């Protein structure tokens, strides 16, 4: 497995203009309003690994997913895939070859499949679009194999999406994503809309497929326990910025950024260990009006003067990085955490 960057994201920014219409602005004197959905992200993903982005609503993780896959153009920054710049798009040809290698799995199993198309056609579409099959018989064989790979049967191809349950539809989504034989999959909360037992089936499937097909995942989620289970590395986002990034074990056992610590404290204690958890304060501010300096400072028990004016830079530490003045200044100690049951 090659080390270093297979997917590299540098200084990625995406701003949305949500200003009121021009006429309203002129007549009522309202200002322009820009949402800085993604405000400078740096990520490196190695081949074969699963990099997870976690955060709460409004943190920008879904926007990052859509930027990587090309659904929005970035406002600034670079996205490199296997050495190729995919941020500046347009044009068929070489770009189409790159598109084939990177696909997406969506969150909503009910909206991500066209209700009027048969499953066969849904899965065959990427194969047809990229010209990956020789003839009809070959196409049918490929679709049949894909269905079997996600533990459905080739006969399911004749049915419509509404005839399947949520978990099965997510499998169909996965089969469609795999149809173009990609190497890199962006997964936007693929199990958030599923029941817990179905989630387990899908996660197991995704991990099997990763091993067998040597896939690389960018996994977006708000569920920390799921992220703990499947990730190699984890990045924590808050209001469009990456506050901390580290290998999974390091992030969970030695969290550094105060927001990371707070998030980990919200994970329910299902092992009934009775572990101590700090109470959580405040709410995520509106992305229209983010706090100055470090955007977390209003909720941070360790904030000082500097935090209200200066935006912290990412500091490399213990195999990852963290953007926090308190850590940099040595004011905040890093401790080990254990989640195991006591006695």
């Amino acid at each position, binding site marked *: 497995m090659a080390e270093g960057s297979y997917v590299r994201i540098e200084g990625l920014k995406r701003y949305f203009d949500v200003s009121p219409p021009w006429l309203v602005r002129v007549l009522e004197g309202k200002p322009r309003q820009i949402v800085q959905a993604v405000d400078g992200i740096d990520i490196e993903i190695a081949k074969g690994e699963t990099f997870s982005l976690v955060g709460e609503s409004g943190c920008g993780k879904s926007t990052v997913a859509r930027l990587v896959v090309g659904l929005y153009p970035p406002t600034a920054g670079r996205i490199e895939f296997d050495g190729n710049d995919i941020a500046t798009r347009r044009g068929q040809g070489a770009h189409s070859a790159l598109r084939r290698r990177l696909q997406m799995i*969506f969150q*909503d199993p009910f909206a991500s499949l066209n209700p009027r198309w048969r499953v066969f056609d849904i899965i065959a579409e990427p194969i047809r679009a990229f010209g990956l099959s020789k003839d009809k018989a070959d196409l049918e064989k490929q679709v049949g194999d894909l269905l079997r790979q996600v533990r459905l049967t080739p006969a399911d191809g004749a049915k419509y999406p509404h005839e399947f349950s949520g978990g099965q539809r997510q499998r169909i989504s996965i089969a469609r994503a795999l149809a173009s034989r990609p190497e890199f999959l962006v997964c936007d909360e693929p199990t958030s809309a599923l029941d817990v037992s179905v989630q387990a089936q899908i996660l197991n499937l995704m991990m099997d497929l990763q091993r067998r097909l040597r896939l690389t995942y960018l996994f977006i989620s708000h569920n920390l326990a799921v992220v703990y289970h499947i990730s190699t590395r984890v990045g924590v986002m808050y209001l469009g910025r990456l506050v901390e990034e580290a290998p999974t074990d390091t992030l969970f056992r030695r969290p550094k950024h105060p927001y990371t610590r707070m998030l980990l404290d919200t994970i329910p204690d299902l092992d009934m260990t009775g572990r101590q958890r700090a109470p959580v304060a405040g709410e995520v501010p509106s992305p229209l009006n983010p706090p100055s300096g470090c955007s977390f400072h209003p909720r941070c028990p360790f904030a000082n003067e500097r935090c209200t004016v200066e935006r912290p830079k990412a500091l490399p530490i213990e195999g990852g990085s963290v953007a926090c003045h308190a850590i940099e200044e040595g004011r905040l100690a890093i401790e080990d955490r254990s989640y195991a049951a006591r006695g």
Partner: protein
Amino acid sequence: MAGGTSFSRWLHRASDSDVWWSFRSSSLTIAAAVVTALILILSFLSPLLAPHTPFDPSTLSLSDGLKPPAWMPDGDWAFPLGTDDQGRDVLSAIMYGTRLSLVVGMASVFVSMLIGITLGLVSGYVGGVTDAVIMRIADVQLTFPAILVALLIDGVVRGLISVQRHDEIALFVIIGAIGLSFWVQYARTIRGSVMVEKNKEYVQAARVIGLSPVLIMVRHVLPNVTGPILVIATINLGLAVISEATLSFLGVGLPSTQPSLGTLIRLGNELLQSGEWWITLFPSITLAALVLAVNLLGDWLRDALNPKLR
């Protein structure tokens, strides 16, 4: 997946469906469907079923003129609903006339749908300035009553070409005029649905694959937004037939050589003063019955296809 079995499967599913069940349980709707079917059959098969050929001058005889309906004194069962001043059998005239009215109605609905769906699709999917422009045009058009729009278009065409040419292409002009006056409702409804669908993830998935916007619009979005179309088209049919009748009644529709129901009503109207009431009454009843039946069907369809009411 052979044709035969999938059709029979569809048939089985359709006969078991909620829509069919709601149809069966409403006697009003069944009555409306029967009336519509009857009118459709009688009018489209008029060359076979009509007792006379009222628009072939060689078969007419003035001595048959102005006979009252058969059940009255002086009536003749050869002409069940009476004749007009030229000796034309009213019943046959109604049958042929209805056929023409329906042809105009259906064709103009088709034209409206074509224009409306295309503009609605483009407007909703592309958005931005294109959407704004199309919608403003639609708004402006809505401020005019449909009849005025049709009159306007018809008038313009008449002004441009000779009377003789006009008679030949009158049918197409009328269809075009009525079609152009009713596209807005389709466009608006489709646009709304398209705006909802384009944010759904299956459309995003198609964009990720890199398909062109036109392909996405036609193959992915269009099949999902056509639901309300059938309802609008059905009610629109009634409106189109009335519009054509109005235009013909006013004398600016189809020429007398190709009379539709509206023309018949106008011709009969002129004779109303002298007491020959049957020439205008029966076409009027037919027109009213047709439009009423079609509207009732449209109402039922809208309720049957609305998942929230079930």
